[in-house]
């Protein structure tokens, strides 16, 4: 394992008397690693992401980034929320631009260029001037994705970011996200319920049990599939086998009673 960048040391979490993470919990994520969390609904994935982002604090243990414990939220850890919120008073383009509002290292011109680039990437360029409540749910989700990508944090926390997208857009963004992560050396923690997406994107897939969450499996994908992820990787037998194996693990994690609390 390479040098740890983002680390969980004996982390536990409870809300009142609800144990979300009971057994102390260690994960070490390397810089520039793409980690995907898989697990049954309600097992605590969002809670883990929020703790990394500094929006929730662990009840025990500690999360550290580059050796120092993470405090409150800051620009180093960007987040795509599960509910894809954007600001209703800003247009689509202004929302994306807002992602860079507090970055002092970019000139105004660079910000506009980045805004246009990411708007184009998520296919919203022609909706630049629309307000969020006038566009569809999937489009709102893309606004949130573009905003976080434009913000360009070192660590990106993405909670089911591609959930409401159509298949083509989803594939396109998966390929692009993987490319961005490799090119710009981002560390990404990504939550999804889609096993295929998990295997396609991840360097490493971590499978959680249902609540209270335990790590059921920690699978090195890059070791098996390599770091390059062309779209036709999906058609290879290796990919298919790995996908099936992860799916089986996930089924075990969810327990026999299929554990989905939704």
């Amino acid at each position: 394992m390479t040098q740890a960048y983002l680390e969980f040391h004996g982390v536990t979490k409870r809300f009142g008397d609800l144990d979300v993470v009971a057994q102390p919990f260690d994960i070490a994520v390397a810089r520039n690693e793409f980690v995907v969390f898989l697990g049954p609904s309600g097992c605590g994935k969002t809670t883990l992401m929020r703790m990394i982002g500094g929006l929730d604090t662990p009840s025990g243990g500690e999360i550290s980034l580059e050796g120092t414990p993470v405090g409150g939220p800051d620009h180093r850890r960007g987040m795509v929320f599960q509910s894809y919120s954007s600001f209703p008073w800003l247009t689509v383009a202004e929302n994306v631009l807002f992602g860079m509002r507090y970055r002092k290292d970019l000139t105004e011109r660079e910000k506009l260029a980045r805004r246009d680039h990411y708007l184009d990437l998520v296919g919203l360029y022609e909706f630049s001037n629309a307000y969020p409540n006038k566009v569809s749910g999937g489009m709102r989700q893309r606004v949130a994705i573009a905003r976080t990508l434009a913000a360009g944090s070192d660590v990106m926390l993405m909670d089911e970011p591609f959930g409401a997208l159509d298949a083509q857009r989803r594939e396109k963004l998966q390929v692009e996200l993987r490319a961005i992560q490799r090119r710009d050396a981002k560390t990404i923690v990504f939550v999804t319920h889609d096993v295929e997406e998990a295997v396609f994107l991840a360097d490493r897939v971590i499978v959680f049990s249902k609540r209270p969450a335990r790590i059921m499996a920690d699978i090195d994908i890059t070791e098996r599939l390599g770091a390059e992820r062309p779209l036709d990787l999906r058609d290879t037998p290796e990919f298919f086998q790995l996908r099936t194996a992860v799916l089986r693990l996930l089924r075990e994690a969810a327990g026999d009673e299929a554990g989905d609390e939704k």
Partner: protein
Amino acid sequence: MTQEVAGRVVTGRVVTTRRAVNRNQPSIWAFRGALSRRAQIGIGVGTSVALLLIWEAVARSGLVNTTFLPSPTTVLGALLTMIQKQSLLWHAGVSTLRVWIAFTLAAVMAIPIGIMMSSYRVVGAALEPIIDFIRYLPVPALVPLSIIWFGVGENTKLYLLWLGTFFQLVLLVADDMRRVPQEYIEIAHTLGANTRQTLRDVAFRAMLPGLVDNLRITLGWCWTYLIIAEIVAADSGIGFVIWTARRYMKTPEVMAGVVVIGVIGLVTDQLLRALHRRAFRYL
């Protein structure tokens, strides 16, 4: 007319596709259905005119004593004479000025305090009991006290108006701020905004439509208190005019005064609504 109807259907289809699916001409009684702006104004004016006509008819029929219920035309006549002979418009101006001074004062104080109450639990915990207590005191009950404190001059009136609006407004503002989704705040924080930036660029912006609405509503209450204040202690203003007219049983003049207040209220309200629509197009 047919053209108009067709036009409406087409726009309806563009805005909300769902509605136009199997009804080409939506009934005006459709539950939560749409109604064009023109139709709304037409219906509003229609009902008002109808009511005035009924009133006029009743007053003229001799069924009621016109000392108690003068006809609309009589009231209108009184209104015109009052404008010419009793400088009614000047009185209206004085009243409006009082309302705006007191209201601005209340708003300028209530907005920051209300925001602080919701942003910092300590501030909320400290102020809420006091504000809640004062809020429930009826303004008329405080008239004697304010006369003792401020005499019967301009200050008493401003103070009473301020009293009536400030405490209500503070809680409304605090509520507007509380309703700003936590997620907006969290987005701002993860984008690197500090507390001040989050308040200014996100929280305040998010609460603004609600705030403007609440200001509009409290401005209306301010007028209620104004009349109380002017009846108690004044030698100018609409309240004073009404109260003087009452003393001589000049019902048409009393009603004319009331009408002036109504008209000012209506106009202000519509202006603020228009402003709201313009400023918050995204809603």
